[in-house]
């Protein structure tokens, strides 16, 4: 059941269009990740949903009720949402307890109830022992969890997260990814999560929305998007891939110069230019020739422990990256053979 719907949502600043007519439906209790490089419009989308901005065109509908449209937007405090900010935005003049209790106090809840609920949520984020501290006395990860608790305790209709983990160090970031997912599984709020980190999106999201230049490139489940990227941008941004472009012979065959590649699925317009994406680990590399294999030279190889990262050049110089098993023996002259399996070659929009 659709809970949050964006209809033709656009935002322009002067003559610059930041967000260009995006449509999106988010189901009740779903966690959707807006993923994209900086400047793609993901944060603008989030701020529009929160009500910090008014759309230039389009609508934002929650539970059948229009919250935002041009010239008419409900202020953020009346949306029943909560948000986690990149800077955490913990109020330095309040204790952890007061920070978390703030939203409940605004709802005129009795003191005893506030104490119970704050106690419960601090328990959930494992911070009960720090309730009387001030934000400046906490580590980054602890501040992050306070921000989570403060947003969750008001039982928001929609939870918004704006790059919540980008200020943490790598190890903590990985831990917090699972934390976010765990809390979402526990509370099941409809959640919009903005990030530029694909691992974060893969770990946390039910639905990933890849954005680029103010538009949605592709939306789908993590596995679906990874397995079937629709465009070269999605393939490279999410997981990384070789993009090989050339002239389409027919719906399934693409001439990339060094060879003609076959895709298992049809996707080209015959006679037009087209592109294929294939993941690094899907390129099969062997020391000896096999049926349908293309000769290639190893230009650079990096041993990474569990894998071997190769940069290869096909006969016409086309470069290809491959992730090979670490025990692959590469001949001294660097000549190898690569196979691009048709089931792994996917037609994409260049």
């Amino acid at each position, binding site marked *: 059941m659709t809970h949050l719907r964006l209809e033709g949502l656009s935002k322009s600043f002067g003559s610059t269009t930041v967000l260009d007519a995006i449509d999106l439906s988010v189901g009740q209790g779903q966690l959707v990740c807006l993923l994209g490089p900086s400047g793609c419009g993901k944060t603008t989308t989030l701020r529009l949903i929160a009500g*910090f901005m008014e759309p230039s065109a389009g609508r934002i509908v929650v539970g059948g009720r*229009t919250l935002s449209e041009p010239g008419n937007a*409900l202020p*953020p405090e009346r949306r029943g949402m*909560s*948000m986690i900010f990149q800077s955490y935005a913990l109020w330095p003049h309040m204790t952890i307890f007061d920070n978390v209790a703030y939203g409940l106090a605004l709802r005129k809840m009795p003191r005893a109830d506030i104490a119970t609920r704050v106690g419960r949520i601090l328990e959930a984020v494992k911070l009960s022992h720090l309730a009387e501290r001030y*934000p*400046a006395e906490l580590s980054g990860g602890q501040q992050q969890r306070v921000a989570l608790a*403060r*947003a969750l305790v008001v039982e928001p209709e929609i939870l918004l997260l704006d790059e919540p983990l980008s200020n943490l160090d790598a190890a903590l970031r990985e831990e917090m990814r699972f934390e976010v997912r765990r809390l979402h599984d526990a509370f099941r709020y409809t959640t919009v999560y903005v990030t530029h980190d694909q691992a974060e999106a893969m770990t946390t999201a039910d639905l990933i929305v890849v954005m680029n230049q103010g538009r949605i490139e592709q939306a789908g489940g993590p596995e679906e998007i990874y397995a079937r990227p629709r465009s070269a941008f999605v393939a490279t941004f999410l997981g990384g891939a070789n993009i090989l472009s050339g002239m389409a012979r027919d719906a399934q065959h693409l001439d990339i110069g060094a060879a003609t590649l076959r895709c298992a699925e049809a996707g080209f317009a015959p006679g037009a230019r087209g592109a294929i994406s294939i993941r690094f680990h899907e390129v099969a590399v062997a020391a000896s020739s096999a049926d349908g294999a293309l000769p290639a030279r190893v230009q650079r190889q990096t041993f990474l422990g569990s894998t071997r990262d190769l940069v290869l050049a096909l006969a016409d110089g086309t470069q290809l990256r491959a992730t090979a098993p670490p025990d692959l023996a590469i001949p001294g002259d660097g000549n190898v053979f690569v196979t691009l399996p048709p089931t792994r070659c996917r037609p994409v929009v260049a």
Partner: protein
Amino acid sequence: MSTTGQGGVQRAGAGMDLSGPVLAASALFLAGLICLPIGWIAAFAFTDRAGAPTLGNFRLLLDDPTLFEPLMTTLGLSCSVAVFAALSATPLAWLVARTDMPGRRVARVLMTASFVTPPFLGAIAWEILAAPNSGVLNRLWRDLSGAEDALFDIYSFPGLVFVISCYTAPYVFVVLTNALDRIPADLEDAAGILGAPRWRIVVGITLPLALPALLAGTAVAFLQAMTLFGSPAILAIPAGFHTVTTKIYSLFQFPPKPQIAAAAALPLLLVTIALLWLQSRILGRRGYAVVGGKGAAPRLVRLGAWRWPVFVLVFAVLALPLFLPYMALLKAAISRLPAGPFDPANMTLAHFSFVFLEFSQTRHAFANTFVLALATATAGTLLALVVAYLVARRTDLSGRALEFLAMAPIAIPGVVLGVGLFLAYTRGPVVLYGTLWILFLAFLTIELPAAFQQLRASFRGLHPELEEASRILGAGRLETLWRITAPLLKSGVIAGWCLIFIGTVRELSAAVMLSSSTTKVLSVVIFDLNEGGNLGAIAVIGVAMLLLTFAVVGFANWITGAGGGPRPQPA
């Protein structure tokens, strides 16, 4: 379903739309504060008595030696003070910021504290100390050496340079110590590891890195010396020469020559603008000044055997702006003869009874000063708060323009503003001369930039997300302002308020032009008493004035800090 017809729906940005009119009103008000006096100065400078356009005022300025000599004197004075202040402040700043000199924290606080001393009070204190005949130090010298001549005549050009330097060197000192504090140790270590001896690191790395700050501080010292009115009026006029500021003042004495005064005020304004522009250019080049760079905390140079000799030297230097003048003032307050011997026969409470019981002007002046300082501090803080908020939340051109307007008064010397406001409000349509309002406007204009800078910095530390977090959790605009923004800005607001209060109490150069017999403020009363040679009464008023300042500032901090101060913001 659309919400247009629903009762509870507001236009988002209804509050945001308000910022447009507020911005326009603030901009208009600020522009009026600045343009009105400056416009009148320009109008007078380029017209003759009959009101016809002319360049004659400027020609007179160059041709008449009684007008031209003050210009040259001011130039010489400013240059001398700048050099003297830089030369004395640089070693002090280095010793305090970069060495293990004993008592360096105390020295730093004391040096900063000499800011609180109004320069004219310092000048009067040095009269008590070093007037050729009656000066305490000169009498001591005669008694000890048996010499006939005075050791030091404060009523002279060198005397004036010395006294002004005493109270401008702290500007250089503060800017320089801040810069030295921020030069990371690894930059010096990098030279050390290449084999540079310690003195070469200081001369070759540390000081060049602090050079922009030194230049900027020196520019401020130059400006201070150029625009100061009190010290030259007290020391130069008895010595028989004028500076530009005292000359402008005398041009308003009978018979008044406002056209020429206006013409003489313009060069002051232009030089100030040029120097401030230069200063912002120097400080604006980041990377060179290493401001805010990461890296290890500065390492202190060990002075070894020199520690205590250096300590004695530094505190001897601090005696000049602080210990000696304050001792002189305190002694003058309770002595029949300021320079007389320190024995019971010379002691008296007459000055206290004169000031507080007999001399009617004092009570008025205390009341005027107090009311003006409270009103200016409160109105100025509110204005600065609104402007700083708009500037912080508007990144477009209108915000920048407003910022410029709020900072512009910093380029208007007090004397120039005094002239401008005098010209603007002694004739219709609005005659404010003779009321406290004209002083209020002058003080508000003069003190606004400092409070604005303070609050702008506070707003910069206040991430917009802190307010947004409150909004999304259900607090409206006003509630957010009250519960989040205001508490976080509290310390900045108090600091801004105190800055204005202190600045207003000690202002003389505009006040002396603008106060009339019923609207005298303390600084003007002190100035008048000095012309009558009543040093004991001055000492009493001066000390009372400082006590009043400390009391009010202390009270402001206490009353607003009672509810638990804001915590430091996380990095």
